[in-house]
């Protein structure tokens, strides 16, 4: 069903909406990014992929301005995210939505109130209008009937859909997805994949998606960046990556268990380790 969609491989010529340049970030001693460059174009779904532990969520937090890079910059619509005052940053975030891995619904508010939350905070709309908007967003994710439930009563997939409704409540221009498909049963996964794509088309959103679910991500993404070892290892359209010759990219894209990205955590030689067991200090 996504076939016609994948035709959009034309070169992206317009100015990118989000630009990441020479991004360096380290946490303690550990270097997470060593010069990452990304360009994210308007109205497209851009996927950022890579093995777990490569700091993909960290990258989203850097884009959202929650973390500060050691060097480099992140520009959204021409404005440097990390050179804003606290107030300007919060204003900027009104134009972004973020979908968290766990959904991150406010546990003390009902589904309805969760979706209404951004509206109440940022607008002075009358209650009837808020209600219409909330029901509209909930309808879009198919959970209008669940509006009185509390987040603790929702399944993981439903919670993520409510979170999606909340993320789009203010009609943002940019939406950041953190591992949207992880840990879902096949049905909810399918629902989420379809929803993501449909919302992107219908609302003209720019989407950035961090994921390691290769199959699902490749079906909906317009452009893919593969990150490993703190750098962009490869980027291109899903079709382009599929035939990439780089062994590391091909290992990741085709999901091979062992290859340039080793199966084993770095350790001394197995044989030596076994023999050493008697001499443990």
């Amino acid at each position, binding site marked *: 069903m996504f076939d016609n969609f994948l035709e959009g491989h034309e070169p992206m010529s317009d100015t990118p909406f989000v630009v990441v340049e020479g991004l360096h970030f380290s946490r303690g001693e550990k270097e997470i990014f060593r010069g990452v460059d990304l360009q994210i174009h308007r109205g497209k779904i851009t996927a950022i992929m890579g093995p777990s532990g490569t700091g993909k969520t960290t990258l989203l937090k850097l884009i959202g301005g929650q973390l500060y890079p050691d060097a480099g910059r992140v520009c959204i619509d021409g404005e440097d995210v990390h050179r804003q005052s606290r107030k300007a940053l919060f204003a900027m*975030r*009104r134009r972004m939505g*973020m979908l968290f891995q766990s959904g991150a619904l*406010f*546990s003390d508010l009902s589904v309805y109130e969760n979706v209404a939350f*951004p509206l109440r905070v940022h607008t002075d709309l009358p209650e009837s209008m808020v209600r219409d908007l909330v029901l509209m967003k909930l309808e879009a994710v198919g959970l209008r009937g669940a509006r009185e439930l509390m987040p603790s009563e929702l399944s993981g997939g439903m919670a993520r859909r409510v979170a999606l409704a909340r993320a789009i409540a203010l009609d943002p221009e940019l939406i*950041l997805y953190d591992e949207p498909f992880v840990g879902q049963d096949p049905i909810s996964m399918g629902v989420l994949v379809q929803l993501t794509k449909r919302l992107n088309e219908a609302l003209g959103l720019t989407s950035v998606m961090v994921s390691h679910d290769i199959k699902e991500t490749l079906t909906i993404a317009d452009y893919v960046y593969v990150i490993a070892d703190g750098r962009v290892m490869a980027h291109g359209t899903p079709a382009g990556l599929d035939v990439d010759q780089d062994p590391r990219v091909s290992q990741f894209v085709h999901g091979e268990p062992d290859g340039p990205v080793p199966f084993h955590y770095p350790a001394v030689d197995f044989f030596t380790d076994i023999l050493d067991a008697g001499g443990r200090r």
Partner: protein
Amino acid sequence: MIRHITHLGRRGCELLEALGRAGIFLFLSAVGVPSREGWYLWLRQMHFVGVLSLAIVLVSGLFIGMVLALQGYTILVDFGAEQALGQMVALSLLRELAPVVAALLFAGRAGSALTAEIGLMKATEQLTSMEMIGVDPLRRVVAPRLWAGVVALPLLTIGFSVVGVYGGYLVGVEWLGVFEGSYWGNMQASVEFIADIGNGMVKSLVFALVVTWIAVFQGYDLVPTAEGISRATTRTVVYSSLAVLGLDFVLTAVMFGGLS
């Protein structure tokens, strides 16, 4: 040796850094005019930290007042001074026991719950997502809790004192037979409103700020895992208890120790 000194130095720097973070944190959350919704959030937290802590505080106050009267009587009666029981019960409650014990109970009942609640919100990324929606969690989550704590604990301390004085009355007058007139009369003659009740309230206000501050900061600053939450909750109770007892000494020295 050098390694140990380096270690000590690093711990010192970390401590200083944490204190700095906590200070900025307090400033950012405490300063600012609350919105109408802010009042409502504050009200909810007042219910949570105030009304729900009332039972434990009042029951403890009653027992402490009763024990004070019982212990005080057995000592005072040796000097033939059992008429001074009211004065002893009231002064020990107002100056020391009510502010301190109420603060310790508050740290255990409300402080640890605040830490766990904020910690859980952090662990489930609710704070981050609030930030991404463009709402400052310091103002929305932390500030109402901080101010609720600061208002609730002095009120709880008053309740503790009142119930404690009545507890002392029950044991001293009703049970041990101290003359009722001298119980209240000696109390009224020796208790000063500003010097005793006022200073007790000041103590309680200081404890309220410190305990709530520690609780919300520990919740906000914790490592967002299950283990991190349980550690932070323990830290809240330990740190606030130590802070309350230590500050109590300092405040007592300043207020009643002639250090002025």
